[in-house]
């Protein structure tokens, strides 16, 4: 196949301005750093995915026969830790956010470009520690590190795993800090708060959580390490400590962390739905407010992970009530996306298919959250596969769909090339089908009572587990496809012009790929966000 003419021949951009490994490893260009993150987290996504596949293969039969019990325990631990801390949390903010936020607000770069590069190196160091942990046997505490198992009983690499996450956490804190300062101080003239794309609002809300929540995780993990190495006894009842204290501290971060993972995805979907409906997002102000409301309320619901843990009856009532409050802004978002499509001009390009998938699967994940917040039901389904299915609908069905959809949407901007549309649609379909087949049976398994983290299980659960494993293999194919054709498109894809979707937003008003400082001259914004009324109509999709 003939190589398409390179867009780089025409003008200098951030990709062709300098070559060589040094120009990448020492770059302070937010767009290049975004690509460094992309490489890093894609690597960890496939590591974590590999563990997931082994888990699903083990669960094909009721007996523990593929791997040993300890190995299985390490597989789900490493799967969780890698996916949460080295893929989901950095994914949209550190890749798409890094690339897009400065461009979307009309800035040349983030406020602290060198801190931005430092954040990436912190994630690399954390990642190396995580790889060291994995290669020296791994940890087997579950990603949740519950003591006293993690502090006094586990015979695995608990401290290095905790250290890996501790270091990665600082990457997250610094990225959040960078975004907050950038969004406050670096907006182009005329880019008021009420004109910010919702993707920027979403990352702003996310950054607040990263900055306020992550230090608590760091403290907690440090206490676990001190307990384990020096028997401080903070969480050890034998020494007057309290294991429930750990759970409070851990979930104080780790529940908001769920919103770190999903809010940026909501931002992506807002951009995509608006673009492919060619409409201003319905209820812009409520959408922005809902993001902030989720970020704030998200800090007040942590103990809903602990309804059977031994907290007081009245504490449980309060946390159940607050959990229902945080469901309201999530509902607002789903309704507004749907309303945005009303009387739109809708095309079914690949990013839009992912947005459809996101809305559907996030709705399922959100609605099953109502089950879990209901105290009486939670007692039965907590710590079962119902919970596994619920949070995978949010994390994988929601967040990963949004991330991959976002990659497709902004790929022409990032690479200057189009991905192959037909393959894109096929992969989206495969992922949607594979995902549902993997995780829907787990809702049923959970209500039947199959506990999570079980290496072997009772034979009556087998049929549903086989369905789930079959789904996981389909899902795996769906995830490999985009990686292949994205790589392919970098050389052979159709050259993209600056605005292939006819989308609103400053990022579509500069070249694809953008020049190093994003704009030749600082834009002056005189229009509202999602100004589709005044954009020329794009051709009908073939």
């Amino acid at each position, binding site marked *: 196949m003939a190589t398409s003419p390179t867009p780089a021949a025409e003008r200098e951009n951030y990709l062709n301005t300098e070559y060589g490994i040094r120009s990448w490893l020492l770059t302070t260009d937010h767009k290049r750093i975004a690509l460094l993150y992309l490489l890093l987290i894609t690597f960890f996504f496939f590591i974590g995915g590999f563990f997931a596949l082994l888990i699903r293969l083990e669960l094909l039969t009721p007996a523990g026969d593929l791997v040993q019990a300890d190995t299985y325990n390490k597989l789900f631990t490493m799967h969780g830790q890698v996916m949460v801390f080295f893929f989901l949390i950095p994914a949209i903010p550190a890749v798409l956010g890094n690339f897009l936020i400065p461009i979307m607000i009309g800035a040349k770069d983030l406020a602290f470009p060198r801190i931005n590069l430092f954040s990436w190196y912190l994630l690399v160091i954390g990642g190396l520690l995580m790889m060291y942990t994995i290669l020296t046997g791994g940890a087997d505490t579950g990603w949740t590190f519950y003591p*006293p198992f993690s502090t006094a009983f586990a015979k695995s690499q608990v401290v290095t795993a905790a250290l890996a996450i501790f270091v990665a956490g600082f990457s997250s804190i610094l990225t959040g800090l960078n975004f907050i300062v950038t969004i406050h101080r670096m907006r182009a003239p005329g880019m008021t708060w009420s004109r910010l794309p919702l993707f920027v609002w979403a990352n702003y809300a996310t950054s607040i959580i990263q900055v306020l929540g992550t230090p608590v995780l760091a403290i907690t993990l440090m206490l676990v390490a001190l307990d384990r190495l020096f028997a401080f006894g903070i969480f050890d009842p034998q020494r007057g400590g309290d294991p429930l204290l750990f759970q409070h501290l851990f979930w104080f971060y780790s529940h908001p962390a769920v919103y770190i993972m999903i809010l940026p995805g909501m931002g992506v979907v807002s951009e995509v739905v608006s673009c492919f409906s*060619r409409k201003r997002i319905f209820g812009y102000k409520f959408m922005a407010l809902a993001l902030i409301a989720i970020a704030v309320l998200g800090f007040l619901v942590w103990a809903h992970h602990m309804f059977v843990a031994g907290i007081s009856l009245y504490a449980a009532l309060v946390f159940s009530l607050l959990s229902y409050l945080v469901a309201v802004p999530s509902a607002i978002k789903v309704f507004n996306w749907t309303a945005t499509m*009303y009387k739109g001009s809708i095309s079914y390009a690949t990013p839009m298919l992912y947005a459809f998938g996101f809305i559907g699967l996030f709705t399922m994940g959100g609605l099953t959250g109502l089950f879990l917040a209901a105290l009486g039901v939670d*007692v039965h389904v907590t710590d079962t596969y119902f919970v596994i299915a619920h949070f995978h609908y949010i994390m994988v069905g929601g967040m990963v769909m949004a991330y991959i959809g976002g990659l497709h949407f902004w790929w022409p901007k990032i690479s200057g090339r189009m991905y192959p549309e037909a393959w894109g649609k096929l992969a989206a379909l495969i992922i949607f089908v594979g995902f549902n087949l993997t995780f829907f049976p787990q809702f049923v398994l959970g209500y039947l009572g199959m506990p999570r983290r079980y290496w072997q299980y009772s034979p009556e659960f087998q049929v549903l587990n086989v369905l789930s494993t079959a789904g996981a293999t389909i899902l795996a194919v769906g995830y490999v496809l985009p990686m292949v054709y994205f790589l392919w498109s970098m050389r052979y894809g159709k050259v993209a012009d600056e605005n292939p979707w006819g989308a609103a937003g400053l990022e579509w008003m500069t070249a694809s790929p953008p020049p190093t400082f994003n704009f030749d001259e600082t834009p002056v914004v005189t229009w509202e966000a999602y100004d589709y009324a005044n954009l020329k109509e794009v051709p009908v*999709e073939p």
Partner: protein
Amino acid sequence: MFQTFPLWPERASTTAGGVDALFIFLLTLCGLMAIMIFIMILVFAAKYRRSRGREAEQIEGSNALELTWSGVPLVIFMGIFVWGAAIYFKERTPPQDSAEIYTVAKQWMWKFQHMEGQREINELHVPIGRDVKMIMTSQDVIHSFYVPAFRIKQDVLPGRYTVAWFRATKAGRYHLFCAEYCGTSHSGMIGDVVVMQPAQYEQWLSGGPAAPLAQTGKQLFLSLGCSTCHRFDVQGRGPNLMNAYNRPVLLDDGRTITADENYLRESILTPAVKVVSGFKPIMPIFQGIISEEQLNALVAYIKSLNQSPEGTAGTRNTPTGSPTGQPQMMQVQ
């Protein structure tokens, strides 16, 4: 087919029906909500598909709609909250006269001590129609007592008692799972709850040679030397434990607390933490000296010393008999 591929768990306790009712309500409600949203998306996607000559109609939004779709869900959510809370409240409040079973969880087994003295591992026999209160602790890490057919689950923690209760309604053998990850053989920390007809259960009870738990506790109370200070006749150097259980206690730091199971437990293991007002912290520490099972026996014995007629949860289990119901559960053998 459905033998090997069930789609609904068995219902074998008084709690299960209520949980299922709310679950089915939520399935219906959320199913309708999801279908409504999916249909809207599909209809919009089809009806407003991009076509030549038609442009999108720009709509800013609608405050009325926003308030509706925040307000209506909020009201519905509050309803679900109250319903869920009502079930939970009942689940967390054991009836006053429940039969008590002490449970010690450890890596990776369940140990049960019946008041009548029977001890079991990974198998729990209970009768139909009787409120059973599980008083549970762990010897090592956190475990969780989970019986899907009863729809109950409660984490079991080291260093304290947690409580769960149920009333079985259907004879049979049901899964008992550990639901909190606890290490290598977590998935092997399973057992059976055997629910029996009351008559069969009596038969099962009479099968063992064991002494009642409170009596075992009494022997420990004597052999460990507790009785030298905790005297019942004259004021000893420790508080008189007669009728002490579930009563308010004034501590030497001025606080008043209830002498519940967790307080008794703590005061045996680490007596100096909460000393009763007027006494000196002279009692030796028993942490690491006695086993969890011995501790349970001691607690059961101290609870059996409550003989007052107004009655507390301990009354039903006094070795000297009880004024109400099923005396065979309380008999001294």
